[in-house]
């Protein structure tokens, strides 16, 4: 059993490594475009809502805490608390998505669309492609991240249902551990995303 647990963990870490490179490549593209359009990117940063990004960061950190607590509860045979912590994690993720949805809609209202749909007026360097590129990357990366949050929510909900059925114990808590690892990666990506998009001035 331990061999299977260790094997599954290696498998999950290998998958996480691929995620690091996936998002990392997007970060690289973002960084290189920032290099190309420094002024436009700085100006575009200001248009994002700092309070929303900061709140989301806090929410995700709390959800990381609840996720690791869920694993602890699973392996100490506290099934009810495990389910509770898993639902709390889902709840935090839900808050994250709501704040993101609000951000997106208010950005769209200002004409801050990605790529060729960018229609904001009042930029300091009109006609420059840098703004549209910034928002393209912003929506792509937060969109891909949001997709991962949704997937995580789905997986955690499924696990919470299984936990309340008593399927996990100190003898078998592999799925909780693996999904929690995935969730921590989602948090980790946001830890980098937040300062690079919201805080650089």
């Amino acid at each position, binding site marked *: 059993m*331990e061999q299977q*647990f*260790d094997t599954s*963990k*290696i498998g999950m*870490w*290998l998958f*996480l*490594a*691929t*995620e*690091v*490179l996936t998002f*990392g*490549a997007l*970060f*690289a593209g973002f*960084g*290189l475009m920032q*290099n*190309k359009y420094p002024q436009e990117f700085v100006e575009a940063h200001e248009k994002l809502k*700092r309070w929303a990004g*900061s709140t989301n*960061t*806090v929410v995700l*950190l*709390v959800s*990381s*805490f609840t*996720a*690791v*607590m869920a694993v*602890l*509860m699973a*392996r*100490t045979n*506290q099934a009810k608390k495990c389910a509770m912590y898993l639902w709390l994690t889902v709840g935090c993720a839900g808050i994250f998505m709501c704040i993101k949805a609000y951000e997106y809609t208010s950005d769209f209202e200002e004409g801050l669309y990605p790529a060729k749909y960018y229609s904001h007026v009042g930029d300091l360097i009109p006609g420059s492609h840098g703004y549209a590129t910034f928002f393209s990357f912003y929506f792509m990366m937060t969109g891909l991240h949001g997709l991962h949050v949704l997937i995580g929510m789905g997986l955690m909900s499924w696990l919470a249902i299984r936990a309340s059925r008593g399927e996990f114990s*100190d003898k078998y808590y592999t799925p909780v551990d693996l999904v*929690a*690892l995935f969730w*921590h990666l989602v*948090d*980790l990506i946001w*830890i*980098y995303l*937040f*300062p*690079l998009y919201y*805080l*650089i*001035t």
Partner: protein
Amino acid sequence: MSTHTEHAENPKAETVKYSITLVALLILTAITIGASYINFGSGNVVIALTIATIKGSIVALIFMHLLHDKPVNAVIGVAGFIFLGIFLLFDFLDVGSRTNPQPINLHPMPAVTAPATAGAPAAADTKKE
């Protein structure tokens, strides 16, 4: 799972550990937000990324259990970041050192003179090359 059973025997201690970690992460978040209001010039990016890396390391080591796990998992996780770093390093090396030089044997374009009517066949001859 011997390392896990050690910890499992003491869930209260584990909970305290995780709670302290969360508080540390929240403090670091506050610091990074605060630092962004102060203008360090290009140092802002460095500070932001450094704090982000510290936060990320804490999440990886404690929340993701890398500190107590078998080393192979940490090697895999770190490898992802190292190779991402390689990608970034060489890309910035290229983009940052481009000078767009002109070819060294570039000749200026010869001036094109309007062909005189009498000299038109001669002009046509030279053009045939």
